[in-house]
């Protein structure tokens, strides 16, 4: 069972995704954060208390204040040790080819998904 982190400014999407993941029964803990900043703060707390990062992070791209890429810039600053079991998946409704390309170039992103998240997709992970 895994710890899964959902980062999306859209609370409805976070809710929907949480329901879908919980139904897939792959997570023992689902954390939702409404912005990159909140998520960073959460990870920093985990890191500080010596706890491991969530194994799966679903990251939205378009968010106010700090978008997905800006979050990744900060995320890479965490130690390799902290990140070693953690995988980030882009989950966005953007189909801007620039975003897709940028995500592909980004080493810390494991995969790129378009919304909505489905139980089949969750099962693949």
């Amino acid at each position: 069972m895994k710890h899964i982190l959902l980062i999306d400014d859209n609370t409805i999407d976070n809710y929907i995704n949480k329901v879908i993941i919980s139904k897939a029964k792959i997570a023992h803990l689902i954390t939702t954060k409404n912005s990159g900043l909140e998520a960073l703060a959460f990870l920093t707390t985990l890191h500080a208390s010596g706890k491991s990062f969530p194994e799966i992070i679903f990251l939205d791209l378009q968010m106010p204040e700090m978008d997905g890429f800006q979050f990744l810039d900060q995320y890479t600053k965490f130690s390799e040790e902290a990140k070693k079991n953690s995988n980030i998946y882009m989950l966005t409704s953007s189909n801007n080819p620039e975003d897709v390309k940028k995500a592909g170039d980004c080493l810390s992103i494991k995969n790129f998904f378009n919304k909505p998240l489905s139980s089949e997709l969750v099962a693949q992970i």
Partner: protein
Amino acid sequence: MSHLNYITFLSPLAVVGTAMIVLFLLLLLLLLYKENKARKKITNELFLKNDWFHKITNRLGDGIIATDSKGVITMINTSASSITGWQKQEALGSHINSVFKITDQQTKAKLVNPVLDAIEKNKNIPLVNHALLQQKDGNCLCIDNSGAPLHNNKGEVVGGVLLFRDLTAKKRAEDPLHNINLKLESKVGARTPEEVESDIFSTAVLGSIPSHIAVIDNDGRIIAVNKSWENYAKNNGETNLEHGSIGSNYFDACEKSILLGDSFTERALKGIKSVFNKEKDKFEFQYPCHTPNEQQWFNLSASQFGDENLQVVLVRKDITDRELAKQANKISESNYRRLFESAKDGILILDANTGMIEDVNPYLIHKLGFSYDYFIGKELWEIGLFQDAKASKIAFEELQRKEYIRYEDLPLKTKEGQHLKVEFISNVYWADHKKVIQCNIRDITERVAAERNLKESERRLKEAQAISHTANWEINLVTNENNWSDEFYQIFGLERGDIEPCKASFLNLINPANRLQADKSMQEVFDEFKDSSFDFSFTAKDGSLKNACSEWQFEYDKNNVPVRLYGIIQDTTERKAVEEKLERQNKELKKANAELDRFVYSTSHDLRAPLTSLMGLIDIIDEDLAEAEIDQKERINMMKQSIAKLDNFIEDIIDYSRNSRTEIEENEINFKEIINQSYQSLKYMEGSARIAIEVVVEQTGKFISDKRRIQLTLNNLISNAIKYQDKAKLNPYIIITVFTDMEKAIITVEDNGIGIAEEKQAKIFEMFYRATLLSIGSGLGLYIASEAISKLAGTISLKSKQGGKTTFTVTIPNLLKINQTR
């Protein structure tokens, strides 16, 4: 009575003596008588000689004037009198210089009188051709003349003889011997009373005449010859028509020659005899007399002479010069004729006295389409060259005075009625001893048209240069001359002549900042002969800074040596302004395109996001339908929110697209009404019930603007104030104030909501910028509002503090005022 007295009172011896004395006296008387008779005979002979002299000189046709050693006229013959226009009585005793004034035909310089020259130098002065003799009445005549000194029997110079001929064709055509019926004067002249002197004088005069003169009697005997005849006979053998010394028979000599087959002599003799027979008054005959060494021609004239016994005077003139000249004339005449006929200019020959057309060349006949006869006898105005007889007369008089006239541009009409422009050049000259007027008429219609076209295209070029603010310049690299066009000076606000056109002046005109570079560029041009250009700026006369550019090219001769550098200067100020504007617009367009690009993706993202949320929710409902229904209400509520958001977003997009594409619609604005409408549409918004709205409107006079755009802006500002109210505060409020005047409206929307952090304020009007985590807005509202206000030429600004008061201030110009000003 005295004889009677002697007889009565003397003795017979005395009577005899007396008779003897008487006899002696009678003898003496007889002797005296005889002597007297002899003297009378001599006198008669002398007189006869004098008579001859006059008859001969008067018959010569040549003018003869004799003077004493001081130049006072002692004799003038009939021809001289008629040529000079001086009567014999007037001329005799006058000085030669007052009677015989001559100038050079070409140079008009005064000529030395040949007789005075001859007296002074004591030698013959040869023939001078083409002198102009001024007649007594002031007219001029073309003559030739020569002079010879006269000697007494001691060989001393006692005077001189002047011989001259009227050379005008007209005069020459006249028969000089027709003037012989003038009565002879009984005395030679007041100055020669003594017959012996007269004899010497006459002989000397006749001797000086180059014509050969002989007098023969009825039998053909030569009874008198002059020196010229004698000399010629001596030098050329006494044969033929040139025969003869005094006492020999002219007829006999001629007969001999005729027997040898000389047909000229035969005809001459026949003619001379016909004068003797009184069949003719005069016989004239021209004949060649060539020797192996030279060609010679003579004119022989025979005319009656003597009252009692019929005698004939033969005058033989050497006309070789004239004949040779005639031949030469024939050649030049034919050359002239050829020119005249083949000339590509019209030529008219006028009578110098009457101004009437005497001849016209084929070109002009062809050009004007009239016949040859049409021209002849007409004056210039009659063929249309001058307006009327008066104008023609004025031109003719000017021509007579200056001997040259030129008109650049005279109208001329062809027979067909075609109007020509002609150049008219006319001059007076002497041809063949006659004054002639030649008029050259050149058709310049095409040239005038070409000149007009040239002027026209120059004018157009000037106009084009003025409109395009382009000037041209050139440097002749051979002479180093600079030339700037008028526009060149105008570009720099100068007048031609203000400065010397040269490189240094040009460098001084341009901005000091560009000067060094310009000088360098120009130096490179000359060093490398490179066609190139450079930009520079300069300060115009009104002080404004202007931009210009110069471009140039080299022109090379056939050896590839540059001979000319020419180029343009263009005032590019306006062009540059346009270019800058274009560049700015281009930038704006690029920005707009980029925004549009982002807009498309963002829109599709934002449209999709709520929809996907809806889908997710619906999925969950679908899956959980069997579960308890406790959460259903909340889920449905969420669905509602999603749909509302989508709805708002779409509305914003419509606003945005409308604002960017539609023109301003002018309406009279009632701000109270607009604010009320906004409030009405927003009163069902979440949280609006909690908020207090205060409206203060100070509207004076009409306010004209776009109602829809103002409404959109107010909706945005008020809804933001409601949306971002601080729920922690007890008295959330919105204060809306409006102040208007003739020029503008100032709207403020103030709230005590959550506020906007200072660092975010700069971005707040950007597209899709959301300053807060509250994801209620689309990120388009303020962007659209600011776009709408800038479309109305207004401004929007904000003052805010995180957690404090936020005030948006909108200023919109009153279109009423702007329209009035316009």
